Structures are given as C-alpha cells and as structure tokens.
C-alpha cells in the first residue's frame, strides 16, 4: 500500500521562518550570556568573551572552503577504480 503524501512541520507556511528566528535569537542570547560567565581556561584566549563562537564559525567556514578546494584535487568518476 503506497504511503500518501504528508504535510510536515516545515510545510506549514511561516514555520521555517519561525524556526530560523528562534535559531538566530538563541545565537544572540549565547553571545550576550557569555559575558557573564566565570571562566578559568587553560589558555588565555578561552577567557575572551565569545571566543568559542568566533572559533566555531571560522572553523566551519574554513572547513567548507578547504573541502571545496580538496574536491578539485580528489574528485573522480564513481567507476574510477572499476575501469
């Protein structure tokens, strides 16, 4: 018996916008709260407010951009080894 099409959470108009709004709001809350947290890191930079936010963001952007460069070098056809 085929399963009929279903309406999911993100199919309802406005839900995706609400989800993203919640996501961005939580980012702002994190950035603000970080100023009021007592820190005793192993390295000096750990105590800089919002260090981890910057490090996480920069890491992921670098990761993706580096992966794009890597793809140019290593990408081959699916049957590369079978030929």
């Amino acid at each position, binding site marked *: 018996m085929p399963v009929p099409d279903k309406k999911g959470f993100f199919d309802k108009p406005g839900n995706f916008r609400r989800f993203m709004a919640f996501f961005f709001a939580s980012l702002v809350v994190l950035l603000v709260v970080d100023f009021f947290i007592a820190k005793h890191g192993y390295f000096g930079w750990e105590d800089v407010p919002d260090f*981890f936010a910057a490090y*996480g963001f920069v890491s992921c952007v670098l990761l993706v951009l580096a992966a794009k460069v890597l793809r140019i070098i290593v990408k081959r056809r699916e049957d590369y*080894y079978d030929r």
Partner: protein
Amino acid sequence: MTASLPPALIFIIAAAITPLVSSRVKKVLGLVAPLLSIALISATPLGAHWTVTFLDYDLVLGQVDKLSKVFGYIFSLIAFLAMLFAWRVEDDLERCSALVYAGSALGVTFAGDFFSLYIFWELMAVASTFLILAARTPAARRAAARYLLVHLTGGLFLLAGIIMRLAASGKLEVGHLGIDGSAANWLIFLGIAVNAAIPPLHPWLKDAYPKATATGAVFLSAFTTKSAVYLMARTFAGADVLIWLGAFMTFFPIFYAVLENDIRGVLSYSLINQVGFMMCGIGIGTPLALNGAVSHAFAHILYKALLFMSAGAVMYRTGKILCTDLGGLYKYMPLTCIACIIGAASISAFPLFSGFVTKSMIVSASGAGGLMVVWLMLQFASAGVFHHAGIKVPFFMFFGHDSGLRPKEAPLPMLLAMGGAAFFCIFIGVYPAPLYSLLPFPVDYVPYTGAHVIGQLELLMFGALAFCLLMMSGLYPAEQRAINLDFDWFYRMGGRAFYRLCDAALNGINRASDRVLVRRLSEGLGRYFADGPSRLALWAARPWWGIMGVRGPELERRQATLRGAMQASVLPVGLAAAMALVMVILLFVF
C-alpha cells in the same frame, strides 16, 4: 566463577547453535547471549580467570580489570541492541558471523595473553568480513576481499611482533608495552593501528563499512576499531606519537566527510575522526585523558551505532543511501529521524548528550598538558564533526529537498533498538556518574560548568550558523555522485602496479622458461637420447660392416634396421647383454 564460560564462548556457542534451531529461537538466542555476557561480566571479580594450559604456556581467557570490564559491558550491550535491530534478519550467515564477531571482540578484550588475543583478533577479522559479504553485491564482494587482505596483513604485523617479543623476553602477557624502540613493539603497534584505522592505514574502513548490509554496518561500527582502542589503551598509553596521530586523525576525515555523498561513508569518516579523539587521549596518557578515551569509546559505540541504525533503517525502507537520492523523510519516518538527531547531537557533544561528558575530558586533558596546537585541532574537529555528522547526516536524509520517496516508518524491532541506544545517549549525557564509576581511574571531572556549557554551545551553534549561511549563499559544495580519492589511491594503484610488476616479472620468467626449458632443452635432450645411442651404435658398427664388405643397398638396409632398433629400444636380448658385459668390463678396468 571460574567454572562458568568466558563471555566470548557464550557468543561463539550461540553462533554454533544458530543454524540448527528455528527462526524464532535463533532470534531470541541473539538477545540472550549478550544479556548472559553482561550478567557474567558483572558477576566476575577482578583478577585472572579461565586459565588454559596450552603446550608450555598458560593462556588466560579472562583478564578482568576495570579497563577490560568497561569494554566488556559496552561490547555486550551494543551486541544486544544491534541484534535487536537485526531481529528481522533471517540470513544465518549474517547472524552467525555477527555473533562470532561480537564474541571475538570480547575475547580480545579479556585476553590476558597475546596468543589467545591473536586468535580472537583474527577471528574478528574473518567474522566481520562475512558481514560485508552478506550484502551479496559485486561491490561488497570486492570490498570484502580488500578488507580481509588489509586485516590479515595487520594481523601478521601483530603476530610478528608477538613472536619477536616472546623470543626476546619470553613474555606473553598483555600489558603495557610502550614505544621503546624495539621492532617487536613497533610491529604490535602497527598491527593495532591497522584496526584502529590510524592514517594512513585507514582507507579500509571507508571502503568496507558503506558496503555492508544495513544491519551488518551497525556491528562493524562497534567492534573492530574500539577493540583496537582498548588494546592501544592497554599497551601504548602515554605514547607521544599517538597524540599527533590522533589529532591528525580527528582533523583530516572531516574534509572528506563534507564532500562524501554516501551517508554511511560520511559516518565512516566521522568514525575515524572520533577514534582520533580516543587515540589522542591514549597518547596524552594522564588518568584524565585515559578516562576520557575510555568513556568516549563507550559513548561513541552507542551514538555511532545509533547513527548507523538510522541510516540502516532508511536503507531498509527505501533501498537508497546516497545524499543525492534522499531528503524530506522526516514526515514519513519521524521516529527514525528523532533517533538520528539524538545520535547527531551526541556525536556533536551537545550538552545533555553523551559526547559532551566524555569527549570534553580528552580536550581538557590536552589543555591541562599545555598542548596548545592539539587543543586547537581538537576544537576545530569538534566544530567540524557537528558540521558533517551532526547537521549533514540528518539534514540530507530527513530534511533538505523532497526526494519523492514515501517510505513507511522503520519496523518495530529497529525502532526499539534505536530507542534503546538513544536512551543511553541521553542518560549518559544527563547523568554521567554511573559511566564515570566504571572508568579505570577515579573521576573528579565536572563536565557541567557554565563556561564549558556556553563555550561548547557557542562552538556548535555558530558552526551551524556557518552551515546555514553557506547553504543559503550556495557556497556549500553540492552533493555529487562521485568518489573522492583518499590514501586508498596509493594502496589500490600501488596494488595494481605491483600486480603488473609481478605479471611482467614472473610471467616473463615463465615465458622464458617455457621457451628455453620446455621447448628447446627438452627437444634437444629428446633428440640426444633418441639419436645418440643409435649414432654411437652406427659409429661402432660401420667399420665392422666395412671390413665385412657390406656395401650399397645392403649397407643402407642394415643401417636403417640398427637405427630403428636403437631408437625403439628393441635390440635382441643377446646384443643388449653383450653391451652390458662390455660396459661392466670397461668400468672394472678403469
């Protein structure tokens, strides 16, 4: 307790009975064996058990201490959950090999001597190969052959190391070895490193795991690499080389995971990345780092199995596993989707999930040791793992574009298994004390501090922000049906070159031998032995016939007769006897 069976044997006996009993009994058997094993391990006091004398050696099948116990528990627990996940599997080959595989991993864990360890080590390689073969596709067959070759080679390194160590020191017991510069220890290290998928020895994992059956991959994700983690922790704790190998191992697979199209390929790369954290912890070697490595292995087995289960359930229902073919399934498989997200949150080390309370011990240990670069690499890898395993895996399977697939929810046994694994992922994250009490060293680590929670949340959420922005701007590399060359290129192309070299060299020798020995030499010898005696006889007879005045046609007739008789060896008996007599006389005289 020495009267009872070692845990490994419980599984192996269950495997031996499996083909003989009805479908329902073998399914129950698959669940009972792990439960018995857990009960047995918890009832066994610390110390050496199940000692067998073999030749002149005492083989210890049950070296029970805190380290082997915690691995014994998790291997048994995951065998239970994976068997539950595989409840519908009727294939005896897969059931038996899964049981033997789990049993031999427990055998490795409790082995007190290197002989029995080696036997279980090889049994593990062979049994796991059949989990790949059980997919019964040509690609799986080829991958299984490569997988077996790699693991047998690794096993031989281990065996060579064991024998050299035995010859040098007479010692067989499994204990701390360390890198002391001896070839024996390096060989043992290399043998373990193959199973731990330490680069550049890692390509087998990404090659084989995505080609196993939907259920087989769950078993594979748990045992081979983690039994290597166990053995590495036992034998090479504090080896500096592991710090850097481990850090590199967390680092490089995430780039490949971003590009990978096969969901189980992404999970394979993130598996290597997570084992990297454990290797790094073992290399640092402080009590905090070793506790981190062991607890992270414990948590990792659960969430990685959970992720492989959710991918397996999708594969079971849709028959597809490539990012390019999947998407939008959250509406049709909501429970599988939730299980996948819990696994993803755990591997990403979100607060309240298991990875948070285990991985952070390793990262903290690197900070406490002042290893600045390692700390930065591990944090980078933590953000990266969220990026590819935490977001990419659920996103491309369950969200993203609508793939047009309309599957049913996963069957009940699969949902129960995923529910069980998900429960433990959250339980450990919320209440780590029971896990901490199982660890080899006393734990005074507090994971839930304000700075740690907020710092980790920032790292992850801003990684997610990067994913969103890159996705929306179209900069994120689109999923493509392609493969990405890894170190496997060197093995596969190296293998091919070696094959060609052998072809040219050995077949060249073959052809030359054929030409010289078979054709020329044998022909020459044949001629020599056929014509030689007749010529000799003619040479002796001709003067005699000359003296006797035999000429013309008569001479030719006699020559032809003698040549024919010599070549066919049909001389009159008297003549042969006379020649023999002459020969004897000649020998006697000279």
